[in-house]
């Protein structure tokens, strides 16, 4: 057996290192600090995330391999890391006041979020199925715990347990798929799999492996029929964690899926596109139709997040440069508008999650009401918000690749979605307020996060070109 010299390159993993070090630091400080001094932990965390963001930006436009071709630094991974880190930043900022309100202010919370972010970053940057799995598990394990972070709350426990059981089940599928691919191609390296799939012989094992990987990652991105956990987990998990789960891990799942499907299996597009076509249609339709009859806003956004996964799958089916870049743009836009919507739910607390609780919100909190309306319009895909631009690019990439039917189904679906998004707006603006509870001022950091997401939503909607160009420059060379 030949001996591989360890190929260590700390520079290309510097964002990951920063996140890891900060996570460990928070973990050490947590038992050391007592009482009020713990308040600095979230600030350490978000500063760390911001530093990592800066370091990602300095690594832009470099293409390097490292760690024996297991780790790749390219614009594709950097773009995704920007998505993850902005999502994490927003979640940390908006969590601070929430945790105090719920009396679960513990340092582990931030540490776990950072570890999960680390896992996602690993997924986006890996060129090896094993490392993808490793990242996925690091991320998932943290999320299982975070979902149950409101320990005294039964719903939170249930959420954590369900997430863990189904998640472990899905991980099994993924690992089995990886094993199958290894059996078929004799490698877990995506580049070598690519070389293999470009050959003439494609054994059945290869496709069985691909199918199982689709199941495993389909669970993470909440695609039909692997989405069943989503509403229960979203409902029970602490709201900031719901926001977190619905943005970062979904994007991480897509980053892995994009690399596997469009890079390693890019030349077999004809073979798998039909499966994804069906998945996309079912995911969109299922999410949107069931969301119609939801009365809990967290569950409503859960189904909406399923539907949005369907839209991104449309971009995957379309494939090609425009498909990849539109999927990336969509995920970025979705991160801002979705977390933005959740921030308002976070502010209102766990007791106000029924749609009726939002009656007349705009008279009590005009700013929150208007911003929530903005995010709802964006999620529904109205111009001039990011949601419109994102959908526009996805559907136009589908039409460009000849999937006009799929684009039409997507547009019809977004018609359906308008109903339940606007229902929230109608309830907020046109109904009388229900109770006369004391008005609470908006906490500073939560307001900051809100401002950031409003900026993202509007910037991507009004001036999409800059970020679209960024996404277009971030496409990995398709095989």
């Amino acid at each position, binding site marked *: 057996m030949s001996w591989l010299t360890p190929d260590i390159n700390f520079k290309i993993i510097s964002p990951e290192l920063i996140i890891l070090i900060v996570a460990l630091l928070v973990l050490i400080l947590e038992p050391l600090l007592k009482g009020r001094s713990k308040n600095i932990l979230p600030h350490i965390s978000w500063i760390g995330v911001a530093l990592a963001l800066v370091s990602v930006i300095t690594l832009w436009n470099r293409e390097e391999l490292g760690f024996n071709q297991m780790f790749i630094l390219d614009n594709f991974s950097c773009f995704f890391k920007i998505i993850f880190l902005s999502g994490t930043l927003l979640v940390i900022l908006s969590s601070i006041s929430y945790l105090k309100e719920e009396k679960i202010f513990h340092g582990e919370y931030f540490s776990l979020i950072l570890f999960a972010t680390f896992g996602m970053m690993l997924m986006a940057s890996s060129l090896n199925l094993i490392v993808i799995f490793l990242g996925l598990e690091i991320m998932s394990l943290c999320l299982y715990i975070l979902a149950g972070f409101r320990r005294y709350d039964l719903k939170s426990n249930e959420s954590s*347990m369900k997430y863990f*059981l189904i998640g472990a089940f899905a991980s099994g599928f993924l690992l089995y798929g990886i094993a199958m691919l290894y059996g078929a191609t004799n490698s877990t390296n995506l580049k070598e799999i690519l070389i293999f799939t470009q050959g003439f012989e494609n054994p059945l094992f290869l496709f*069985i492996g691909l*199918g199982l990987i689709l*199941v495993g990652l389909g669970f993470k991105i909440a695609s039909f029929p692997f989405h069943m956990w989503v509403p229960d987990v979203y409902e029970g998990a602490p709201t900031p964690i719901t926001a977190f789960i619905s943005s970062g891990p979904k994007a991480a799942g897509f980053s892995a899926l994009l690399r596997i499907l469009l890079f390693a299996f890019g030349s077999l597009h004809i073979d798998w596109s039909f*499966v994804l076509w069906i998945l996309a249609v079912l995911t969109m339709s299922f999410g949107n*139709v069931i969301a119609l009859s939801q009365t809990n806003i967290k569950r409503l956004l859960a189904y909406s997040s399923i539907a949005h996964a369907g839209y991104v799958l449309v971009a995957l089916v379309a494939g090609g440069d425009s498909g990849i870049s539109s999927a990336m743009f969509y995920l970025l836009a979705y991160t801002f508008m979705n977390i933005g919507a959740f921030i308002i739910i976070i502010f209102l607390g766990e007791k106000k999650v029924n749609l009726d609780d939002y009656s007349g919100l705009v008279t009590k909190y005009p700013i929150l009401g208007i911003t929530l309306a903005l995010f709802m319009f964006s999620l529904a895909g109205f111009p001039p918000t990011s949601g419109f631009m994102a959908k526009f690019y996805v559907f136009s990439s589908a039409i460009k690749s000849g999937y006009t039917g799929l684009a039409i189904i997507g547009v019809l679906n977004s018609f359906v979605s308008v109903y339940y998004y606007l229902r929230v707006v109608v309830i907020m603006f046109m109904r009388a307020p229900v109770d006369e509870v004391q008005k609470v001022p908006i906490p500073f950091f939560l307001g900051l996060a809100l401002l950031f997401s409003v900026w993202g939503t509007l910037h991507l909607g009004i001036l999409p070109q800059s970020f679209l160009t960024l996404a277009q420059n971030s496409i990995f060379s398709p095989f």
Partner: protein
Amino acid sequence: MIDYCWLVPFLPLLGFLLNGLLGKKIGKKLAGWVGCGSVFFSFLVALKIFSELLSYPASERFFQKTLFTWVVSGNFNINIGFQIDPLSTVMMLVVSGVGFVIHLYSVGYMGKDPGYFRYFSFLNLFVFSMLTLVMADNFLLLYLGWEGVGLCSYLLIGFWYEKRSAADAGKKAFITTRIGDLGFALGIILLFWTFGNLNYTQVFSQAPSVLSHGGALITAITLLLFLGAVGKSAQIPLYVWLPDAMEGPSPVSALIHAATMVTAGVYVVARCHVLYELAPLSMGIVAVIGAATAIYAASIALVQNDIKRILAYSTISQLGYMFLACGVGAFACGIFHLFTHAFFKALLFLGAGAVMHALSGELDLRKMGDLKKYLPVTFWCFLAGVLAISGIPFFSGFFSKDEILWKAFSSPHGGFLLWLIGFITAGMTAFYMFRLFCSIFLGKSRVEEEVKPHIHEAPKSMTIPMIVLAILSVIGGWIGIPHVLGGKEHFGKFLSVVFEKGPETHGIIHSAKAESLLMILSVLVVLIGIAVAYLFYISRPQLPKNLAEKYKGPYKVLLNKYYVDEFYNKAIVGPFINLALWFWKFIDVAIIDGFANGSAYILGWISGVARKVQTGYVRNYALSLLLGAVVILAYFVLR
């Protein structure tokens, strides 16, 4: 500073955001500062740009500054970009300069209004939109500004929305101009369809080669664009909204409905002069409509009693002059009249505002008179404005109006008839302006007794803007003194780069004698108009009444504005409402709603059924996952 030309529209936008979002928090005083300051600084920037522009040789005074790319879709590429050339600079100066003065006036005029912040934010938004309109370097951005000013006009006319008539007037203005805007939008679409581009430079440079001279397409484009101008600039037949628009606050009338927005149509025609010169038929129509509107509106103004409405009809009439100038190919003259008109008409409106202010909101000139001793400053300023608009020599209106009359007579596109109409209108203008002036300030006081003790001169923040505008109304025309009077025509020369291909350079009749003769004639007719007004309203006040008795029929027609509003209501609005009712009751409620509600009902039902899949049991979730896996694998295996 030209590189920073985006500051000019950006500052008022900032003011709009600050006042609109934070108005109540920062207080009235600061809000007023923000409102005025933002426009003032944008005026300063515009001045700097103007002085820099002068430092370049005349042929190089052209810049296009692209801020960023707005939309890219295939070959459709639109930039947010500004064009700096003499024409846009003149417009920038007028908009920001007059705008600033009127903002200042508003501080005093609106001081006690509860909607103070709303007012200033809308006013700033208006200035932003208007500056975007005049600075745009492509038709789409122009259209954005065009719609923006329309919106602000609507918002500000209906500013006192609790008043039914104000809200209705706002709607009327919006809907009427909308008809024109439809044409305008179609014109832009046709332009894009023809050229595949909307940038001025590209469109104008390709136009002569792409379009045949006098062809159907260019005529259609120019007429559609002109339809937009007709709506926005209140020309026949879409002028009906402007008199009603006087329901808004007086400074709004001064800024939007006298000095700036209504002149946007003239600006667009002048900006597209390359296109109009290719379409002689359209030029003719522009000239005829302009002339007809001028005399028509002036005739209505003769007998009206509401001071602001008289000014409104006068504005329509003056705008007619500008279109007449454009129609005969004298675009620079049209812009020159726009420039001077902005000063004296804004001044007159502000003066009317001051009179209203003094008389607790009274608008009927039959209840005024002899206000000279109460309102000395307003009196003198108003006099300057009246002299300017009447065309008394060496006041600003004289130069610009006379130039238009001369061009209407001498230009190859013009003719004797057009000149005659303009000439008669000049006399009418002098008459009704002095009728207005005499009735307000001179003669016997007819003010109601309970109002009398409260009459007072306006505060400084209102009088200073009037004084500034009065000075400008007197001297504003001196930058364009024609050669006949020994002037240098600086204004025309400055603009000549933009209009260099204009036919005005090769007029048929080029005789100084003829020009002087016409000038003397027009001064005479103006003096006659003034004399008649003096006779009617100062020396023998019962005379007009007798005349009205004698010619009851024509008088009534004029007083009721030729019954055009009634005609429109019967012929257009009524049937339209019936059609709309039919669409609503039958097409919308029965068919469309039925379809939409039906599909929504079905979807809701499906949703209710499908949600039962969500049992809450982990085993069922795992089963669904497994089933999914089996189906996917089966597809791959059995394929």
